[in-house]
């Protein structure tokens, strides 16, 4: 989860998010270089009192500053397309979890073997004991290093389910099942918030994933009928 003054992406908890972060950093680096260069030239030209009365033609530099940006764009496009296709790969998931958005809470169903269902409401804020607007009463246990298929839908209006540190977001639409696939590669708590306006308490229906070892997960499932 982000801490105060956090400007960038959250630390990734999934290999795909890690790749997205690297791509973001790579592109941002190029953008800052370009912006600095252009800004420097701009300021320099503005503050320069001299005028070149014979500025004409200059084919060489025209070629350079047409070809060089094209090459830079290729350096951006190649990782971008690689990542685009990587995100679209089909995965053989080991477990399916369903999440249904309601006004104003999420409900989760684990139906692969024993049918486990529970609701997840925002925990009321009490000073010094939880994170305001982010903590929930029932967390979503997720087994580590396991490909998860998440089926997202809604019961009333459109909501949106997201966990930024996993790079996952999909709308929860009534009458439709949206599938996202992810893998959590470190244990911990990962937070998200409803991302589609859904009424009065839209800001008060957070999502909290707790990734645990496969054994702990199996224990939890079998002890929660």
């Amino acid at each position, binding site marked *: 989860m982000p801490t105060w003054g956090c400007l960038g992406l959250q630390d990734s908890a999934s290999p795909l998010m890690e790749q997205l972060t690297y791509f973001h950093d790579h592109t941002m680096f190029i953008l800052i270089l370009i912006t600095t260069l252009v800004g420097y030239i701009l300021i320099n030209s503005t503050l320069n009192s001299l005028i070149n009365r014979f500025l004409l033609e200059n084919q060489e530099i025209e070629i350079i500053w047409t070809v060089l940006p094209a090459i830079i764009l290729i350096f951006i496009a190649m990782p971008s397309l690689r990542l685009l296709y990587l995100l679209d790969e*089909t*995965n*053989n*998931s*080991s*477990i*399916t979890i*369903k999440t*249904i958005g309601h006004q104003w809470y999420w409900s989760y*169903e684990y*139906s*692969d*073997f024993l*049918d486990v*269902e529970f609701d997840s409401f925002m*925990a009321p804020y*009490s000073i010094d*004991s*939880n994170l305001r607007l982010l903590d929930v*009463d029932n967390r979503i246990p997720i*087994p580590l290093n*396991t490909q998860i*298929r998440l*089926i997202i*839908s809604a*019961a009333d209006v459109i909501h949106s389910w997201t966990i930024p540190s996993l790079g996952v977001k*999909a709308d929860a639409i009534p*009458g*439709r*099942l*949206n*599938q*996202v696939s992810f893998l959590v590669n470190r244990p911990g708590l990962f937070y998200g918030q409803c991302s589609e306006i859904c009424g009065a308490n839209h800001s008060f229906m957070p999502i909290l994933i707790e990734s645990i070892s*496969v*054994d*702990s997960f*199996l*224990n*939890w*499932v*079998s*002890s929660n009928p």
Partner: protein
Amino acid sequence: VCAVRQVALCQLVHTTAILFTMSSAIMASNAKLETAPFDPRFPNQNQTKYCYQSFVDYHRCQKIKGEDYEPCNYFKKVFSSICPNAWIENWNDQLESGIFPGKI
């Protein structure tokens, strides 16, 4: 079960207690996580048809092959995993009342 204040510690104790009293039967049958497989007929994000088609195929399979035909349970496994329970209950009620809109 666990009060808000000491959730982490309480859950740790709770989980450890369950670990020692676990019945091995459940452990063995769930040792390998398994779910509805990837179906190339539905490769994209919208899985609504996968859910509906599996439900309908299960009932058609039962109608054609009889209630005791074991392989029909593949479809049942799929739609139980993919379809929201509310949808399944609704469709089962409709089937019982004879108002299910699909062709079985």
